[in-house]
C-alpha cells in the first residue's frame, strides 16, 4: 500500500480558506490560487485505490459539513461512492440563511478552492457530473461561470442550476427534487439523496465551505487539518457576525474559538444581551455566558446550541428576545414548503403563542401548550425545517425566561413591531 505524499502546508494556522484575502485584501483569481495551492491534486489519488485513499483521508480529517447539519463529510462520500451507477455532485451554493454571508464571501474571495473541492469530491466518488446550485438571480452566477470557464483541465463537466429563492429550497432533497422534477420542495426520506438522487443516481450534496476544506485536506492531509480546532471539530470555520456589532462581516477562525473572541473581533456592543448561534433556526444563548462557549460541535451542544452555518447574530440590549423569536418563527412558518401537516399548522401555532407572550395577551395555559406543541412538532416533517423552529423557540424560552415571566405578568413588549433579525419572506413559489 502506498501513502499519499502531501504538499508542504501553508503556515498561517487560522486563515486557510481566506489566506489570500487576509494577505492581499483581494479575491484570489485562478493565477493567484495556483501560485498558492497548485492545481487540484487529482494525480495524488490515482485509480480506484486513490479514490479510496482520498475518502480515507477525509474520514481521518474529521471534517464535518458546514451547511448546517454537521454530518461527517468522509462518511457521506463513502456512502455515495458505495452506491455506484455514476454519481452526481451537487455544490450547494444557495446560502438561504438570512444571517449568514460566509458562503457568498468564500465564493467571491476563493472560488477556485470551492471548485477544486467539487472536482476532488467528484473524483473520490467517481461522479459523472458536477452541478452548482445557486439562487436564481444571484449576482455571483456570472463571476462563477467565468471562474469555471477559466479552468481548462477539470475532468468532469460543471454546470449551473438556478434555485428558487426560498428558505427550504436548498435543503438537499429539495435540490434533488428540483433537478428531477422542477419542484424545489423537500421529499420524504428514504430514499436519501446519497441512495437515489439526481436522475436516480447516488448524489453527494455538499456546502461550498465543506468543499473548500476538502480541497485543502486533499493537498495537505488530515494531520495538517487537525492541527488546529478541537478533537471533535477540527480545522477552521467561517463565521458571519451581524446584529449589534460595529464591524459586521465574515471571518475565518479556528474551530473551538470562544464566541466572545469572535464578538470582540466584530466589536460587539458591550451590553448586548444574547447571541443567536448557528442561524435563525439555531439557538439563543445569553450573554455573557455565551462568550465563554467554544465554537465547536460538542461544546455548543452542551450549551444547548449547534454550530449550524457558523452565524452569530448579536441581540442589542433594548430588543425583546421573545418578540424577535416570534418574528423568526413567523418567518419560518411562511417559508414552510407547506407539505407536512405538523409544519403547516404547527409553525404558525408556535409563532402565535410566542407573539401572545410578547404582547402580554397570552392565557395562563400558554407555557404548557407551547411545551406540548414543541414536542408534537419536532421530528414530524419530511425535512428538518420544523425542527429548526422548535429549537429556536425552546432556546428563547430558556434564554429569555425573565422576559417571558414579565410579559406573562402583564407587561407588554414595547419592541414587538420591528424585527432586528433581517428577515425577508420569499416572494415566489418553488418552481
Amino acid at each position, binding site marked *: 500500500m502506498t501513502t499519499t505524499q502531501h504538499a508542504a502546508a501553508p503556515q498561517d494556522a487560522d486563515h486557510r480558506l481566506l489566506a489570500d484575502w487576509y494577505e492581499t485584501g483581494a479575491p484570489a483569481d485562478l493565477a493567484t490560487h495556483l501560485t498558492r495551492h497548485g492545481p487540484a491534486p487529482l494525480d495524488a489519488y490515482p485509480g480506484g485505490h486513490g479514490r479510496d485513499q482520498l475518502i480515507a483521508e477525509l474520514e481521518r480529517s474529521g471534517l464535518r459539513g458546514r451547511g448546517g447539519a454537521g454530518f461527517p463529510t468522509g462518511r457521506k462520500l463513502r456512502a455515495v461512492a458505495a452506491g455506484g451507477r455514476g454519481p452526481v455532485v451537487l455544490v450547494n451554493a444557495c446560502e438561504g440563511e438570512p444571517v449568514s454571508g460566509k458562503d457568498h464571501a468564500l465564493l467571491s474571495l476563493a472560488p477556485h478552492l470551492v471548485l477544486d473541492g467539487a472536482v476532488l469530491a467528484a473524483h473520490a466518488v467517481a461522479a459523472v457530473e458536477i452541478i452548482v446550485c445557486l439562487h436564481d438571480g444571484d449576482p455571483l452566477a456570472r463571476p462563477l461561470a467565468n471562474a469555471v470557464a477559466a479552468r481548462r483541465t477539470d475532468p468532469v463537466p460543471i454546470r449551473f442550476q438556478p434555485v428558487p429563492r426560498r428558505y427550504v429550497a436548498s435543503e438537499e432533497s429539495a435540490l434533488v427534487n428540483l433537478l428531477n422534477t422542477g419542484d424545489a420542495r423537500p*421529499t*420524504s426520506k428514504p430514499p436519501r439523496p446519497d441512495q437515489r438522487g439526481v436522475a436516480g443516481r447516488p448524489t453527494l450534496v455538499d456546502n461550498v465551505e465543506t468543499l473548500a476544506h476538502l480541497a485543502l485536506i486533499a493537498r495537505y492531509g488530515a494531520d495538517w487539518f487537525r492541527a488546529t480546532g478541537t478533537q471533535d471539530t477540527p480545522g477552521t470555520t467561517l463565521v458571519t457576525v451581524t446584529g449589534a456589532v460595529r464591524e459586521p462581516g465574515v471571518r475565518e477562525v479556528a474551530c473551538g474559538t470562544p464566541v466572545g473572541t469572535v464578538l470582540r473581533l466584530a466589536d460587539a456592543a458591550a451590553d448586548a444581551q444574547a447571541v443567536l448561534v448557528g442561524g435563525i433556526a439555531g439557538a439563543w444563548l445569553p450573554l455573557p455566558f455565551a462568550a465563554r462557549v467554544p465554537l465547536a460541535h460538542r461544546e455548543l451542544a452542551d450549551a444547548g446550541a449547534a454550530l449550524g452555518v457558523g452565524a452569530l447574530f448579536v441581540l442589542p440590549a433594548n430588543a425583546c428576545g421573545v418578540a424577535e423569536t416570534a418574528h423568526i418563527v413567523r418567518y419560518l412558518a411562511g417559508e414552510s414548503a407547506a*407539505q*407536512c*401537516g*405538523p*409544519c403547516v*399548522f*404547527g409553525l404558525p401555532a408556535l409563532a402565535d403563542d410566542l407573539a401572545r407572550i410578547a404582547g402580554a395577551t397570552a392565557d395562563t395555559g400558554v407555557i404548557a401548550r407551547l411545551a406540548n*406543541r414543541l414536542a*408534537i412538532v419536532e421530528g*414530524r*416533517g*419530511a425535512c428538518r425545517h420544523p425542527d429548526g423552529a422548535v429549537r429556536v423557540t425552546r432556546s428563547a424560552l430558556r434564554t429569555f425566561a425573565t422576559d417571558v415571566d414579565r410579559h406573562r405578568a402583564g407587561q407588554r413588549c414595547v419592541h414587538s413591531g420591528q424585527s432586528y433579525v433581517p428577515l425577508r419572506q420569499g416572494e415566489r413559489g418553488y418552481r
Partner: protein
Amino acid sequence: MTEHLRVDPIACRANGLCADLLPELVDLDEWGYPIVAGSDVPAPLRATATRAVRACPALALSLTDR
C-alpha cells in the same frame, strides 16, 4: 423480524383512519395528523396494522421490515 409503522408526512392528509383502526399505536395531534407511538409493531397487532395501512386513502401509511 420487527416490522415498523411509518407515516409519509408529505402524503398524509389527516384523514385519521389509522387512529380509528389502530388506536393502540396511533394517536392524532391537535390538527388531526397521526403520531405513531414507537414505530415497532408488536406481533399481535400486525394484522390490524396491515388493515390500517390498506385503509389509508392517501397511501401515507406503510409497514417496513427495515
